[in-house]
């Protein structure tokens, strides 16, 4: 076959669909499927060509990521004429990206734009007319990707990756200069100091992988809490946002009594909504624990959604609740507008300031819920960031690059520990720099040589 490596990508449009498909193509497709997939039926534990298999995708610790259907198409009778596995999971960004990440962890490479079609063509599966379309597709997709990458440049992963790459080139330049100019009076860098530098970068990579803000929002979703007195419509709001057909319900054990957590999908953005126990002064001990938890949840939330009852005047309790909104990202919902309105909107505006949007709804009539979704989306992605599959892909690409670089750096550290000569350690460093540069298409040699000559005084 034409290609050696196995590729994977999300095959369905972003976010909104009822199901999402992760497609894997290449010689390792089936091996990867075997690693991530657990059969639903105990009787049938083998993959059959051109059959759908029911089961679960699990991560390395055995946690279930999603319930799925898996299709296996043995090459050449498949779209790309290679072995193809398609995993059909629930729609929405969380399960589909988690599955894609597992697949990549097991050895697939994230597909380039249009790469499945490219393979289909190069492997003789589709005809010439279609090929034209593929080239245009690659072109268009690349521009979008580039745009997404630029979006990320501002304080995003790319900036970090770029800086890390520069630090590595710095280390390399110090090693390489003593190789190419052994007679110049340049101090050899002590392996211990290189070790420390590499360790720092490995740490930074690990931190970046776990905390990158955009990455977190996409991986875990925006964390939103709903607060309000009892009976103002919190549960109705939750139910209205959680449209059954696209919801993935996660019950957090031990918290079901007082805090209910649900994932919803707003225009492709994952939002984790937590319905809290009503906050009010109480002497009931059990309830107090619940309230305690609510308060914690409020503290850690990315967004606070406050529900007020428009049909009754503002009470002290409401005022207390509104206190929580100070200096926070929040949204106030005036519910029950279908009833005679007794709440003074101006009074609330005075209390919360002009920064916090107010939406009027009638959740029982289903009125205003679109607006709530719209506002939540805009609050987090004010049009600056287009949360689309493209952006996610760049994100995964960055993570892939970081993971690769991390592995090479660990190899380099091992080399240092085994007292290998620095020029050999440098080979792993070069691979790490190459992995980081792959995103932007930068190669190491020129940058390295520029660095050597700008930092060191050399020559005859």
């Amino acid at each position, binding site marked *: 076959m034409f290609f050696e490596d196995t590729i994977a990508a999300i095959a369905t449009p972003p976010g909104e669909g009822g199901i999402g498909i992760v497609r894997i193509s290449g010689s390792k497709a089936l091996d990867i499927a075997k690693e991530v997939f657990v059969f639903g039926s105990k009787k049938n534990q083998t993959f059959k060509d051109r059959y759908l298999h029911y089961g679960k995708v699990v991560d390395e610790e055995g946690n279930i990521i999603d319930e799925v259907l898996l299709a296996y198409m043995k090459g050449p009778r498949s779209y790309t004429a290679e072995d193809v596995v398609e995993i059909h999971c629930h729609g929405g960004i969380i399960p589909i990206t988690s599955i894609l990440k597992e697949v990549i962890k097991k050895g697939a490479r994230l597909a380039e734009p249009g790469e499945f079609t490219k393979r289909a063509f190069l492997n003789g599966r589709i005809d010439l007319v279609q*090929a034209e379309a593929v*080239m245009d597709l*690659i072109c268009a997709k690349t521009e979008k990707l580039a745009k997404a990458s630029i979006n990320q440049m501002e304080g995003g992963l790319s900036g970090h990756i770029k800086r890390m790459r520069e630090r590595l080139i710095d280390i390399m330049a110090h090693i390489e200069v003593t190789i190419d*100019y052994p007679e110049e009076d340049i101090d050899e860098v002590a392996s211990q100091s290189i070790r420390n530098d590499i360790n720092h970068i490995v740490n930074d990579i690990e931190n970046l992988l776990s905390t990158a803000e955009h990455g977190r929002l996409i991986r875990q979703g925006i964390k939103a809490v709903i607060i309000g007195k009892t009976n103002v419509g919190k549960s109705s709001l939750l139910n209205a946002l959680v449209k059954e057909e696209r919801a993935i319900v996660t019950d957090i054990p031990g918290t079901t009594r007082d805090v209910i957590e649900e994932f919803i999908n707003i225009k492709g953005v994952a939002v984790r909504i937590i319905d809290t126990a009503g906050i009010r002064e109480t002497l009931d001990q059990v309830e107090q624990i619940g309230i305690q938890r609510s308060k914690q949840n409020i503290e850690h939330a990315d967004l606070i959604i406050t529900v007020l009852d428009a049909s009754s005047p503002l009470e002290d309790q409401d005022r207390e609740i509104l206190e929580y909104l100070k200096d926070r990202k929040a949204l106030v919902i005036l519910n029950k507008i279908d009833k005679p309105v007794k709440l003074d909107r101006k009074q609330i505006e005075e209390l919360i300031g002009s920064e916090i949007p107010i939406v009027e709804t009638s959740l029982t009539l289903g009125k205003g819920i679109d607006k709530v979704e719209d506002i939540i989306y805009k609050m987090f992605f004010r049009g600056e960031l287009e949360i689309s599959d493209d952006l996610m892909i760049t994100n995964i690409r960055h993570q892939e690059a970081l993971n690769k670089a991390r592995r090479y750096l660990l190899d380099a550290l091992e080399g240092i520990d085994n007292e*290998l000569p620095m*020029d*050999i350690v440098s080979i792993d460093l070069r691979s790490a720099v190459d992995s980081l540069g792959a995103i932007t298409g930068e190669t190491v040699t020129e940058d390295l040589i520029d660095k050597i000559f700008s930092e060191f005084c050399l*020559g005859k």
Partner: protein
Amino acid sequence: MRLKAGDFDIIVIGGGHAGCEAALAGARMGYKTAVFATNLDNIAMLACNPSIGGTSKGHLVREVDALGGQMGLNIDKCFIQIRMLNTGKGPAVHSLRAQADKHDYHRLMKSTLEKQENLEIIQGEVTEILVKNGRVTGAVTAIGDIYTCKAAIVATGVYLKSRIIIGEYSVNSGPNGYSPANRLSDNLRDLGFKLQRFKTGTPARIDGNSIDYEKMIPQHGDKEIIPFSFLNDTIEREQVPCWLTYTTKKTHDIIRENLHRAPMYSGSIEGVGARYCPSIEDKVVRFSDKESHQVFIEPEGKYTNEMYPQGLSTSMPIDVQREMYRSVPGLENVRIMRPAYAIEYDCIYSKDLKLSLESKAIDGLFFAGQINGSSGYEEAAAQGIMAGINAVQYIRGEEPLILDRSQAYIGVLIDDLVTKGTNEPYRMMTSRAEYRLLLRQDNADMRLTEIGYKVGLVDEKRYDWFMKKRERIDKEIKRLKEFIISPTEEVLKYLEKKGSSLIKSGISLYELLKRPEITYNDIEHLAGPGELKLRQDREQVEVSIKYEGYIKKQLRQAKQFKKMESKRIPIDLDYSKISGLRLEARQKLNEIKPESIGQASRISGVSPADISVLMIYLEKMKRDGGRDGA
């Protein structure tokens, strides 16, 4: 009056390091060859430092040798000092460097050319290259002689419109007072070549009798001599020392006070200099916080007192040169015999060449050496031998020999020049090689001798020598794998002495040799004398076993690389017609005309997505039956 004076298969224009290897390759492969030099007294002249080799350059010399070239054999005959550099580092970056007797080197190379069958040496300045219907047909010299040929190699070094600058003084001259070649530049322009101007420089030559060596640190050669050529396993020779001294604050003050008189800063030099070969005034300006710079005093030969002060290259006026040199410890009373100078010259844009070093525009016209924008004797020789081989392949009507980046430093050098181009004199560096662990100086013969034999450059004697060596090594590796050593008391004692972890059960010598602290010598201690007696055999076995893991890792990367290199692109492809390619990519691809997908991917400004589009386009063309089907 222009008269036909001769007919050759190959004409080589220039008798420097590129020209000599090119001419020898052509003649040795059986083709009637002529080499032209403006003056036969400057054949293979070491115009700058009297040394050959150095980091990565030593690798190039070994590669030229492995392919059947001459540089290694001749330097082995005339070095006056030799050292293996970087021995404290890994085997991939060990590099040989020799101090040459520069007169002997010239004489030896001239004599080699004279003795070579099929080769004629002619003194004459070539002023015109004859081209008919896009093919080279001959060359004309200044005195009007016409020589016809099937292929020509331009290896004019730094002689095209060269100008020497010493402070306020400048003169149209080649290095060392030799005549420049003023007319060939214009002819190349007429033929459609764009030219650029580069600059390099050399220090003064000083009288050894006026040096106080007591104030300097001697630098001796290696006790155990490792020669360049694979045909020489060991050499015994008396060696001479070099000397190390340092510039002082006073040196730097003199330079600073006179900066306004330095041509580099007064603007009278237009050529682009190399960052790795800065003049002393450049170093003082760019690294102003450095209080002192190294100066190596190197002898120019056995029968001369002239010394080469490496580190003191300058284009300052002669009075500043004198004052500045005399501020260096040991040089207080130094007498300058030849002044330092900067030299400017015309060179072509190497992007105008194919990977075979043939011009993209004119068939049968090859370029090698400094005219391509490179610098260094070794870089020149490496291009020379390849241009020679490929001129022959061209005449034969066979595919050119192209070494890729995973096969040889020569491949890295030529690919860099042709694919990326250069905007300063290009120097080889080990950091330019991605597959450094595969491209070692110890295995250049393993990589290239068979290739050289197949094209007909490596002779039977060398090939036979190589085949026997390979056989010995394969046999010994097999033996080491099969020989199991037991944890006897004696063995354990020895391992303990070596600081090596003790073995509990039997272990093969092969596994044992993998340990960093265990050498082939140790293996012989433990298991009795091995089969290998020659230094180069033992080194080969030791290195390939000890670094097997890393070598395998690089082999895997190289395999991936090779795949992309093997996907050919027709050279006449019109990229402007390919929809889907970004505009920048179309322009760059049209400029370089890459020969493979791999080469295309290394062009700056061509993205991975462009490469995908290109691959699809090529496949589409293929299915279309070769028609240009955009």
